[in-house]
């Protein structure tokens, strides 16, 4: 009897306390998720009405060159940013782990891009990369069209992206490195292993779980990149289609062209793409991530 009363009160409080969150998730996420899938299978009619049209939007999407280019751009952006970004972040994390004075000042500086809005960051870099008056061409003595050359524009965006996320990734990796027991390094030093050897035989395997988290996070963020490219490459830029990511195309298709059915199909495709890449990584991790501590 008494237990029954307690569990009933538990139930009351439990449901009461989760109510706002669950209601919010249903209205803001579950319903929109289903609605997006339905809309991707509908065509837009007058007065904001929709009509079921099967896989018509998907056929339009898959036969569009611009769509495949955007998919390729998103994947290429991933390839350009993720390996190089994580490599530098790992080196930075090791450097920040050294016992030196002024470590916290360096940490503060490297983390800086994380707290300023990507829109502002992109605007500053766009000026630095300006082909005619930008400081980068002036210093290098080059005449590279960083933002308008179709072959270069995504590399430029990738540089800015790596610069922006370097400190953040390094801080995450640093906390992973700091959890490694010092005794491993002491033993290795006694055995005469060099610092470089210690890095590859102790640091990398021991930090691999954190490395995996950073990798997944970076892959997801790169595949849905939008704000940086939107700010660097405006819609009048001749290299637009060579830089346009899937989410940029999604934005233009849904909110500028007003074709929300096709926009929804692009969103569904992006989610599938991210899902596939994530699953592949989770399978691949068994080969290199070390969970035994």
């Amino acid at each position, binding site marked *: 009897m008494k237990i029954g009363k307690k569990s009933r009160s*538990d139930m009351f409080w439990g449901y009461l*306390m*989760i109510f706002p969150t669950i209601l919010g*998730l249903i209205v803001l996420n*579950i319903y929109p998720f289903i609605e997006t899938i339905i809309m991707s299978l509908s065509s837009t009619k007058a007065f904001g009405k929709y009509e079921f049209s099967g896989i018509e939007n998907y056929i339009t999407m898959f036969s569009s060159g611009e769509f495949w280019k955007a998919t390729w751009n998103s994947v290429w952006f991933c390839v350009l940013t993720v390996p190089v970004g994580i490599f530098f972040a790992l080196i930075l994390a090791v450097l920040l782990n050294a016992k030196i004075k002024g470590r916290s000042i360096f940490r503060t*500086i490297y983390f800086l891009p994380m707290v*300023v809005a990507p829109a502002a960051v992109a605007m500053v870099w766009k000026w630095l990369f300006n082909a005619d*008056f930008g400081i980068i061409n002036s210093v290098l003595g080059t005449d590279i069209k960083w933002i308008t050359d179709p072959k270069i524009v995504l590399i430029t965006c990738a540089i800015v992206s790596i610069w922006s996320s370097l400190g953040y990734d390094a801080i995450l990796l640093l906390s992973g490195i700091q959890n490694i027991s010092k005794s491993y390094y002491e033993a290795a030093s006694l055995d005469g292993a060099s610092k470089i050897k210690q890095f590859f035989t102790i640091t990398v395997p021991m930090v691999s779980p954190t490395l995996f988290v*950073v990798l997944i996070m970076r892959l997801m963020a790169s595949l849905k990149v939008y*704000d940086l490219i939107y700010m660097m490459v405006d819609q009048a830029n001749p290299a637009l289609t060579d830089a346009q990511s899937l989410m940029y195309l999604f934005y233009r298709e849904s909110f500028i062209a007003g074709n929300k059915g096709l926009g929804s199909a692009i969103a569904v495709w992006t989610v599938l793409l991210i899902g596939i890449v994530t699953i592949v990584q989770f399978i691949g991790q068994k080969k290199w991530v070390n969970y035994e501590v």
Partner: protein
Amino acid sequence: MKKPINKVNILVYIALGIGAITMLFPFVWMVLTAFKTNTEAMQIPPVIFPSEWKLDAFKQAMESLPFPKLYWNTARMIFFRIVCAVVFSSMAGYAFAKIEFPFKKALFSLVLIQMMLPSQIFLIPQYQMLAKFELTESIFGLVFPGLVSAFGTFFLRQIYMGIPDEIAEAAQLDGCTKWQTFTKVMLPLTVPGIVAIAIFTAVFAYGDLMWPLIVNTDVNMMTLSSGLSTLNGQFVTNFPVLMAGSILAMAPMLILYILFQRHFIEGVAMTGGK
């Protein structure tokens, strides 16, 4: 005894120093450009310092964008998003961690599903709901997708799970009701987690661009990020104005970061992985 200078440390300093210059240079160049005239900014070869430190670019940026309104809109959006994330996520996180009720696992899976899906998949219907009720061009519209936070719920649940059950049991033996146990005993123990969620929410909301651009198209209702992006089209070749605008948009968060940098870095390291 004099300590021998460690050669490795010197190399570390050099590497970190070069990196730090790379990180800081864009900001320095932004400031230097903002105080130049446009002809000075476009000189070849470039001049490093402005011959005269002029505020014209700032004036022009302030004239073309209603910065006081952008600050006020951004502040309100961030404030309400933080309040919602902290209050609702604390409640739900506590319930999911410490209270037993039927269908708990199934309900929690809703939280996990939201976290796994990229936010863009929700965007069109979220916008259409607002448009239907004529709630675009409003602060509520800016706050809307952040009314609840799945990540906040997940994160605070983890923190509550780390607090031993005995603490809550002792409070209830002392005569606290369920609600009092939560607000007076358990909640105060999660303050570092709450600070981390608040910072995470603020940084994310401040940087977000696509949602504010979609939902509020009137420049007087924009945030700093979306407002700044309109400047981009307006002054394609007036670089001092663009840089002055960037400084004005960066300033509030930069000041907060410099004041509370430890909390920022620890907060982000704590919430890391999302």
